């Protein structure tokens, strides 16, 4: 029988765990940098620079971590997490054209910049040091993670 030593965490009566949740939103975007020429944009972004934009079903995955509350057995209130993510992320971005949103006025709405913006919003809305990881899947082949 293998004995697993959880070290100080369990001896102190704490257990740190991680809770992950997925959210979905559908949005369009165009990858285009105004300071580059049409040819340069085409070279950098390929068909993602097509003038009328294109779209994705994005999956946003949020991982929070902390001690397991002894009374509730939970790391964090899931309803409160859902409420914050829906208010700060899903509602503003779902069924939108990202290029028309204020937060992307000066940055190209690549999924790299999208994951950074999502993390920034959630860190303002949720307790400090709660968020461990934010990941955004743009397609089944591309995903982006941000852990500063």
């Amino acid at each position, binding site marked *: 029988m293998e004995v697993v030593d959880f070290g100080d965490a369990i001896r102190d009566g704490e257990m740190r765990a991680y809770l992950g949740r997925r959210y979905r939103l*559908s949005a*369009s975007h165009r990858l285009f940098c105004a300071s580059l020429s049409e040819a340069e944009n085409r070279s950098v972004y390929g068909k993602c620079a097509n003038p009328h*934009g*294109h*779209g994705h079903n994005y999956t946003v995955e949020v991982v929070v971590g902390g001690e397991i509350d002894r009374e509730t057995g939970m790391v964090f209130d899931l309803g409160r997490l859902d409420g914050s993510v829906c208010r700060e992320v899903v509602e503003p971005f779902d069924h*939108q*054209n990202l290029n028309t949103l204020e937060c992307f006025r000066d940055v190209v709405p690549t999924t790299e910049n999208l994951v950074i913006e999502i993390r920034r919003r959630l860190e303002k809305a949720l307790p400090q040091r709660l968020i461990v990881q934010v990941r955004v899947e743009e*397609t089944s082949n591309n995903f982006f993670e941000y852990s500063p």
Partner: protein
Amino acid sequence: MILLTRRAEFSASHYYWNEAWSAEENTRAFGKCANRNGHGHNYTLEVTVAGEIDPATGFVVDLKQLKDVMEREVVSVFDHRHLNLEVPEFRAMIPTTENIAVAVWRRLQGKIPGKAKLHRVRVYEMENLFADYYGD
């Protein structure tokens, strides 16, 4: 008879809007899908053909040729495009999942290689929403 299905993906933007209606009627019918700035999806397309197995090859259809037909007739036209603004059939037809399935059928009808027949077109707008069209 064997049914064979080939899958392809494309990413496109669209909106739902009926020009004959007021803005209020469009919003009531289509909700946030009526946003004229558009939104988008990763679509999954499944093309199903039906036929008998060729005894020489063991195939119902030449998959490379089927893939090329799908790419030429559908994916290259729809992928990374705005369906309402850049695909001709959606100038007069709302690019709902249902209408996209019909449009794809019409593009592929008569172009399936060999003896196999087009049996079904399925279009997923999202993983939990799809439309099938059998050419009726």
